[in-house]
Structures are given as C-alpha cells and as structure tokens.
C-alpha cells in the first residue's frame, strides 16, 4: 500500500525525502538526460544493431518483416471485409507502423528500468536517459518502417498534398507522448512487478479495439444503425485519435481538428501526472529496481 508506506517514511525522515522530492530535481533529471544525447543516441543504435546482427538480411530485416505482415493481413482483411486491396492495404500498413511505435513504447516502457538494473546500480545517470534511449530506438524502427511506406506509395499512390506534412508534428506528438507513457509505466512497474505482463495484455487488447485492421469510417458510415453507433463508441478510445492524427495525413485524407484536440489534451494531462510521479519517486527507482 504505497500511500501508507510513504506516510511512515515521511514521518521518519522529513528532511531528506523533502530534498529528494523536488520539482527542481525532477526537471534536472529530464534536462540532464536530454543533454546526454550522445549516450542514448549510441545505446539506441546499439539496440537496433544488436537485433539484426544475427540475421542475414541485416537492417532490411526490420523493414521486410513489417512489409510481409502488413501485406498478408492487408490481403486477408480485404477479402474478409470485401474491401478493395488498394484501400485496405495502405490503411493496415500505416496502422501497423504507427502501432508498432505506440505499443512498443508502452510495453517496453514497463521494463525500461527493470531491464537496465545493472546500469542503474553501477553507473550514476539520470533515470530519463533510459527512456530517451527507448524512444530513440522506437524512432529508429519507425524510420526503417517508413521505407515500406515509401514503397507502398509507389505501388498504391495516395493523394498526398502539402497538408500531408501534418504527419511530421503528429509523429513529434507520438514521441512526446511515448516518453511520458514509458516513464510513468516504467516507474510504477519497477515498484509493482505484476504490472509489465498486465501492460502487455492491455496493449494487445487495445490493438483490436483500435481501428488498425478494421476501417473506422466504413463502420461509421454503415447503413446498419447498430454498427454505426458502436463505431461512434470507438471515439472514446484515446489510441484512435493518436492513430488518426498521423494516418490521415499519410493517406492524404482531410484534417480533422477533433483528433488533434484530444491528443493535445491527453499530452498535457499525461505529462502533468508523470511529472508528479517523477518528482515523488525518481529517487526510489534505484532502490526498487
């Protein structure tokens, strides 16, 4: 019961916990972490190289495995839903690429400190370094996967325009949100070890609840009223909005303000919560890990 634990701790040692629990130290951790770009930049690349070091295809392996999955599912679901392949495949492909970033940021975020126990206990560093490394690694994966998107644009051209550049700030928002999510889930998971497996299950569930393989607008415009009203419920799923801000511009679709508003609001709330947790538990991570 964390609340009780903390209250006794405070009663016992007011001076130091007060000192460790400061906004200054929390922001300092983030700022120093950010300045160690060379470190997490290097470690992030290392992580990627590690993964393809043993594969024959090298770096292409990441890209090709994404392409194969997306094509297989694109063909399958185009058949199942009776959609045209040139519509279904780009939709699924982008959904997959974006979800790979979102889902891994959260599931790997749950392990971000636990997996780095040795580093944390042996080398003094701001804890945010490990989160920067994680988000950077996921960004590199995303970059590799964009190759598949580029090839897709050749095979199935999309009506891209200048407005498609909205995908750039959209991805920046995904990174900013991935960061707080990983940091928050990471800290709590270090204390409560039953959280990482739960996180994996929840992310898996959200994959199916979020329009990645199924096309949201088709259901929304369905002539069957029950299907259409169910589809509207999906708007309650925050992941839908994260996906739409980047998928719509990448498919050359129109700008929908509401998705951006929802994402911006969650960004602010998520960071506020995470900063409070960082302030209070930053110094506990090396004790819990």
């Amino acid at each position, binding site marked *: 019961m964390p609340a009780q634990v903390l209250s006794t701790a405070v009663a016992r040692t007011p001076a130091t916990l007060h000192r460790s629990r400061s906004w200054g130290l929390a922001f300092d951790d983030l700022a120093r972490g950010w300045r160690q770009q060379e470190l997490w930049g290097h*470690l992030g690349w*290392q992580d990627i190289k590690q993964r393809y070091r043993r594969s024959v295809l090298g770096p292409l392996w990441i890209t090709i495995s994404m392409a194969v999955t997306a094509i297989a599912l694109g063909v399958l679901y185009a058949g199942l839903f009776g959609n045209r392949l040139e519509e279904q495949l780009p939709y699924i492909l982008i959904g997959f690429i974006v979800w790979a970033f979102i889902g891994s940021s959260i599931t790997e975020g749950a392990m971000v400190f636990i997996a780095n126990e040795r580093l944390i206990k*042996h080398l003094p560093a701001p804890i945010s370094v490990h989160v920067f490394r994680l988000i950077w690694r996921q960004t590199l994966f995303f970059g590799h996967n964009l190759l598949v998107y580029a090839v897709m644009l050749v095979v199935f051209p999309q009506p891209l325009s200048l407005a498609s550049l909205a995908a750039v700030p959209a991805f920046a928002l995904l990174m900013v949100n991935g960061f707080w999510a990983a940091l928050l889930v990471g800290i709590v998971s270090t204390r409560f070890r039953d959280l990482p497996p739960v996180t994996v299950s929840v992310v898996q569930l959200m994959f199916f609840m979020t329009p990645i393989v199924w096309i949201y607008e088709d259901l929304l415009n369905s002539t069957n009223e029950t299907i259409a009203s169910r589809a509207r419920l999906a708007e309650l799923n925050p992941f839908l909005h994260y996906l739409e801000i980047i998928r719509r511009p990448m498919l050359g679709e129109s700008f929908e303000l509401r998705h951006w508003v929802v994402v911006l609001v969650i960004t602010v709330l998520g960071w506020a919560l995470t900063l409070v947790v960082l302030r209070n538990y930053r110094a506990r991570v090396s004790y819990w890990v």
Partner: protein
Amino acid sequence: MASIEVRDASVDFPIFDAKTRSLKKAVLGVVGGRIGPNASKVVVVEALRGITLDLQHGARVGLIGHNGAGKSTLLRLLSGIYEPTGGTASVQGRVAPVFDLGVGMDPEISGYENIIIRGLFLGMTRKQMDERVGDIATFTELGDYLRLPLRTYSTGMRVRLALGVVTSIDPEILLLDEGIGAVDADFLRKARGRLTDLVDRAGLLVFASHSDDLLRDLCDTGIWLEHGQIRMQGPLDEVLVAYNNRGPGPKRRPPAGGGRR
C-alpha cells in the same frame, strides 16, 4: 574542488515480497478486500545508519568491514546512485565509479565499444573518448582483444578495462569497490601509479577492499564500517590494526522487522 559532505545519512532498502510487490494486492487492500494480516508491512534492511563524513581534496580513504557491512552501499551513496533515505549527502566534483566486475558493460559488444559507452556514461563526449581510446588500449594491454565481444574477457580483463577508462578521464572523485582486486599483481602495480597520480592531481579516492596490502598501497585514511555504521575512522594503519584485532567474527544483525518502510 572535490569534496564530500555526508550528514547523518541512512540508506534503507525496502524488501518486497510477492505480496508487497503486487499492484493488484495493493489495490485490493485499499478498496477493502481482505488480504492477510501483514499486507502493508514491508521489511527494511538498514544498510547504512547515521553516516557522517567530511572528505576533502586529496583524501585517500580505505573502506574496511566484513561482508554486508555496507561498503558497496556507501560507495553508491557517494556516487549519487542512491539518494539517502535519511540525512543528507552532498558530493561536489566529477565522480567515476568502478563497482562490481565488469559492471554495466554489455557482454555482446566489443571492448572498444564498451570503453566508449562507459566514457559517455561518465559524462565524456564521444570525441573525447575517441581521443583516449588509444591510451586506454595501451594501458590495459588488451591489444586485439578490444575488438572481441566482452563476454570473451576474464574478470581481470574487465577490471583492466574499467580502470583504464576511469583513470583516463580525469575524474575528481574516484570510487573503487573491492572487485578491482581481481587483476594480477603486475598490473595492479602499474595501475597504482596511475591511481595515485590521479588522486594527487585531481581529488579524492574512496576504495573498499579486504586486502590490507592494497589498502596500504592506495590509501592513507581508514573507515571501518560495521552493521552500516562507522565504527572507527582515522589513520589507515590504526584502523587496520583495530579491525584485525576485533576479536570473534561479527554477529549478523537480522533485518529490521515490519511496519516500517
């Protein structure tokens, strides 16, 4: 200028069991589910208690004490890895730690890569490390081994590498745990020169060891830790004599029981 100022500092480790590590159990406990009598009690180990230390530029301190006395924990407190759970610890100066063997090094990547990463962790830039890699390679005498993955290294070789890095980056505060005793005598003699130079030049050394010879080589002051408290502090020879004549082995103190953190 390097300095260490620790006031009445303590380090308490919470020891979680399956119950207290579980979020599900914690939540059930709050909403009124019944989960056994001890649900909220977490055992703590008081690894350090009431530590007060003042170390200035030029200090060469040897940490002495039986296993579990708190030497490694004190070194981590001084490095900033643990912030004290009571009291205060303020450390001025650039810290370079060499703790366990091989520590925080990635076994799958080469020695060169590990040198760079350690340096980056200790606040160096990639460029600065690239400049030092040659010097470190010469000092460690590891030669072509530096191109092989670290998992092919012996313990002593890993320690050489770690020592090579910390002594090349001009730290102000050097923290060494007993693991460095794993290198052979010849190398240690060589390292000793470099370490004493470093301390003379820059700052401050704290070294935990069970080897009286090593301690005499590197340190002039001694701190004897027992059960997480400073039992004695003074000139190294006096502390070593007192420690070696301490009589029958120390009794283990059981962890402090429940109710607290």
